[in-house]
């Protein structure tokens, strides 16, 4: 039962962060985190799909028979993704182009099916919606953190504008290896602080 939205937010963003803690949805988090605008766009699009699919699946939880629940969930999720895809193409064409195939791939983002299976199929509509929101925000925050680091180090830019005049960016950070290094050290840092806290 969800009572406090603050605790829930903390859960989604920090203690159960989908990317940094649960290691779900790694492909888009590395694939699109080359710039903050991409990261933010991807995060919000996924959040929308997550809220939508959580709501619908929670509504339908009594109707969908156990045996076909996974295909049913996939249909629901894929429909939301398609809707996001079309809306984005219509109103944010630049973002749509730069996110490329990672938009349709939201369908196979494990966070979404995971939340449907683990939460929405067992809880009521409002709680499922809140769960989708906080998990989506956690995903978005993680993406923004990763993409901020990568855009600054790799292009010396933030939101497409020069960040520190004169700083020589290390292109590797917007290439594939830099994505791996960035997420490795962010997770390492999180682990480090966790361990320090546990020692106390």
């Amino acid at each position: 039962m969800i009572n406090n939205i603050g605790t829930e937010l903390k859960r989604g963003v920090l203690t159960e962060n989908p990317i940094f803690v649960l290691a779900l949805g790694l492909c888009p988090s590395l694939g699109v985190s080359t710039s903050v605008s991409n990261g933010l766009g991807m995060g919000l699009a996924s959040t929308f799909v997550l809220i939508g699919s959580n709501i619908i699946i929670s509504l339908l939880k009594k109707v969908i028979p156990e045996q076909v629940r996974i295909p049913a969930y996939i249909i629901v999720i894929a429909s939301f993704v398609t809707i996001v895809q079309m809306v984005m193409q219509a109103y944010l064409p630049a973002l749509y182009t730069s996110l490329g195939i990672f938009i349709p791939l939201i369908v196979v983002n494990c966070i979404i099916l995971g939340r449907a299976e683990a939460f929405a199929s067992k809880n009521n509509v409002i709680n499922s919606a809140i769960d989708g929101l906080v998990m989506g925000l956690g995903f978005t925050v993680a993406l923004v953190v990763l993409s901020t680091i990568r855009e600054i180090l790799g292009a010396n830019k933030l939101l497409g504008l020069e960040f520190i005049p004169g700083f020589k960016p290390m292109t590797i950070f917007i290439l594939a290896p830099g994505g791996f290094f960035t997420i490795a050290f962010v997770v390492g840092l999180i682990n480090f602080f966790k361990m320090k806290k546990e020692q106390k």
Partner: protein
Amino acid sequence: MTTERTLDLHISSSPHIRDSRSVPHIMRDVVLALIPAMIAGFIFFGIRSLMLIASAVIAAVVTEYVISEKLLKRSNAIGDWSAVITGILVAMNMPVAAPIWMAALGSAFAIAVAKWTFGGLGNNFINPALAGRAFLMASFPAQMTGTIFSQSGLFGKVPSPLCGMDAVVTSASATAWGGADALSGATPLAALPNLISSGANIQDTLLPLFWGNVGGCIGETSAIAILIGAIFLLGRRVIGFTIPVIYVATVFILALFFSGVEGASPLSSDAATVALFHILSGGLLFGAVFMATDMVTSPITIKGQAIFALGCGVLTFVIRKFGGYPEGVSYSILLMNLVTPLIDRYVSPRVYGTGKK
């Protein structure tokens, strides 16, 4: 190339120990072996080459010290000279005109990311110095290859010293090659057809390549200096013959057979010249002697080493001929580093770790 500590518990990846000398001794030999190449770098590229090396070495040692002593509180690592070698190798794999800070950044990355995230010497799976160079290559492609500059050495200016052989131009034959601009092909051999069609004698380029005074990275300029170091290391049995000989021979043979498009028909004397050019140019000798032979990241058995060296040779030639980067040596060694664990797994006739006495 491992600490005694890791030898005890880390069986599968430990190197073959040929005698009872300790790690610091072996490492010191490697540093000594690098001295001729460093001198050659100084002679041909001037004092700046030594500044780059110094900057890289200091950064490597400081990084090693901070991580091992301060962050991880492990005290036995710093004395083994391996950080010094990594620093030297990173700098020697850079063009002399690269900014001084870049050498420091590259070797700091090599030590911190490629080596210490895995727990230090003996645990890394990839050659740290090459990882550092590849990091710089991907981050600052302009400074690591493209820009044309002149640098005064003791024997006058070296034209267009593009690291990793974006274009090799010897002082003597610069005009014959049509100047630096005409040569900005993707590989050294891309420049060769021009050379052949212009009627210049390719053989004239071989001697400068052998002695030095050609463009390129600091460490790779003089073949003779590298060979002196190689003979020393082989004599001290720090490295074996297998890797360097097979590596170089593979590239030579491939060039002999597949150099047709460069204007020379296979197996002709022209092809032999082109093949020699392949060996003497770029970082092949330097890589084969100092980097492919790294005990931690190359296979344990002789048979495994032969496969490793063959792979390096093939990849080097393929990248030089078809690749987007000008030079294939560092990437081919890095790629074969990835394969080393598999080679060790499947080619292991002897008991792990004991090596041959």
